[in-house]
């Protein structure tokens, strides 16, 4: 089908694949990008919050024409029980700056824009093409791919695997293991459409200002999970995700959790009267530093979600994906510029460069966090949220009980639920994992 040999083939047109293809093509490499969806973005799902800094490093003037929804001026972190939420809200006019720091985006639209930039940079983008197999030479070096289109193999010096969280190719080729049920979360999300002015009124926003809510608590029914609500221009993305291993252990259904979240008294008024136009599901890598696989080999590198590069604590994924794609591309460009072959030894440069970036530094910082959340997660996601709600209500409700007795009751409730030793141990474990 395609006779020419490419400098690089990129598999996948998500954040990491687009970043890699754009960066290599802008440096003059002959790049072929393959995407199985009808259009770039048609298979991609994200909340979604996009961090400007990481995209600026790839496309500095992206604000001129990228489809951005709202820039965030307010973030609400909630702990929920069945009838309440206790929250920390941070809102600042400082976020109304000339070049805002974070935006909500709608991935299908954003990915189409990013893909147009990739083509403008000179790459060939082929959609509706599923890569079925990696082609290797006698020495086991990856030298190309086979697709479900008619024709034979397509060859390249290097293959960039940007195939997403459960990427079939790399796992089947034995380049890395399949993610484990305890290292991936399953998230479901609905798109709720509302008039722009209704969203602005409900969240106290003007113009392009945006607000996001992220919530832990009994909404995940004791499982390690997170609910989220992101304001877009004319829609609200509402979703919830929990570890796959927890879903299995509890035999819970994600859509039941989502419907319960929608009916929570703190959420229901925010989405009242909306029209739902899509329901999506996706896996999120949650294993952190310890789940990062081998990132390079003879003739290949792996980037983004496929490399499990996701910061679960800060809920950052696409920026790690973009950055790993860019860095892998820069490493390939460097090897190419000195006429080096795309061997494992030369491509180790990608690993070394990534190690020095925020991507690996952040994941290393939180390397013990996944294990903490996987053991006795019900304390963090059910017991403490209930205790916090009780403590807050006890503090707020004025009923003639002397304050000293109220404080004693709150302390007693914490000790009864977790014991003194349990409280100290939870605090110490959390502090060590956060450190």
């Amino acid at each position, binding site marked *: 089908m395609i006779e020419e040999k490419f400098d690089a083939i990129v598999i996948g047109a998500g954040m990491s694949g687009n970043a890699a293809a754009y960066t290599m093509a802008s440096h003059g490499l002959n790049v072929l990008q393959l995407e*199985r*969806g*009808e259009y770039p*973005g*048609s*298979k*991609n*799902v*994200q909340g*979604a919050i996009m961090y400007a800094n990481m995209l600026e490093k790839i496309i500095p003037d992206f604000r001129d024409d990228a489809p951005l929804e709202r820039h965030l001026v307010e973030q609400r972190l909630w702990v929920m029980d069945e009838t309440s939420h206790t929250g920390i809200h941070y809102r600042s006019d400082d976020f109304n700056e000339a070049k805002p720091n974070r935006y909500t985006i*709608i*991935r*299908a*639209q954003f*990915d189409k824009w990013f893909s147009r930039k990739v083509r403008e940079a000179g790459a060939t983008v082929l*959609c*509706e*093409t*599923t890569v079925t197999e990696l082609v290797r030479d006698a020495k086991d070096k990856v030298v190309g791919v086979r*697709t*479900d*289109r008619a024709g034979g193999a397509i060859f390249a010096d290097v293959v960039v695997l940007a195939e997403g*969280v*459960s990427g*079939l190719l790399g796992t089947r080729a034995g380049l890395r293991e*399949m*993610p*484990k*049920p305890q290292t*991936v979360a*399953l998230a*479901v999300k*609905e*798109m709720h459409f509302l008039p722009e002015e209704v969203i602005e009124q409900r969240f106290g926003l003007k113009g392009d200002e945006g607000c996001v809510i992220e919530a832990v608590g009994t909404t995940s029914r004791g499982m390690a999970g997170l609910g989220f609500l992101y304001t877009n221009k004319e*829609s609200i993305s509402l979703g919830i995700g929990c570890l*796959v291993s927890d*879903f*299995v252990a509890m*035999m*819970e*259904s*994600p*859509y*039941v959790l989502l*419907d319960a979240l929608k009916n929570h008294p703190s959420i229901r008024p925010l989405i009242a009267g909306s029209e*739902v*136009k*899509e*329901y*999506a*599901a*996706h*896996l999120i890598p949650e294993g952190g530093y310890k789940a990062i696989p081998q990132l390079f080999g003879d003739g290949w590198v792996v980037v983004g979600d496929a490399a499990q590069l996701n910061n679960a604590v800060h809920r950052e994924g696409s920026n790690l994906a973009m950055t790993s794609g860019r860095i892998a591309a820069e490493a390939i460009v460097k090897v190419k510029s000195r006429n080096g072959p795309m061997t494992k030894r030369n491509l180790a440069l990608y690993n070394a460069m990534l190690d020095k970036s925020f991507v690996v530094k952040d994941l290393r910082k939180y390397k013990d966090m996944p294990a903490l959340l996987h053991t006795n997660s019900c304390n963090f996601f059910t017991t403490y949220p209930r205790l916090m709600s009780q403590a807050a209500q006890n503090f707020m409700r004025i009923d003639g009980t002397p304050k000293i007795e109220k404080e004693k009751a709150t302390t007693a409730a914490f000790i009864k639920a977790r014991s003194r030793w349990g409280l100290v141990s939870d605090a110490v474990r959390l502090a060590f994992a956060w450190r």
Partner: protein
Amino acid sequence: MTIAVTKSRVEDKLFQNRYLVDSGRPHIKVRPHERPSANLLALTHVCPAKCYDLNDKGQVEITPDGCMECGTCRILCETSGEIEWDYPRGGFGVLFKFG
């Protein structure tokens, strides 16, 4: 009764989505079995599109038309060989309008 209500709700959700179904070429298959393993059985609850269901013999069956290609069942049941999972052919399957 509760199960029926839940199921109809998922179908309502999936009805909003756009799919291009590759008729006669399901991208996921369940291996014939006597009794499902714990993971395979869990898919009847955990699959976000409720593609997996029990037949009257207590075996797990799949109808992948509403599949959102999240990969949860692949993570749980491919290694053991209980299911076969392939990407749909290029252009087929779910087509997210928003993602």
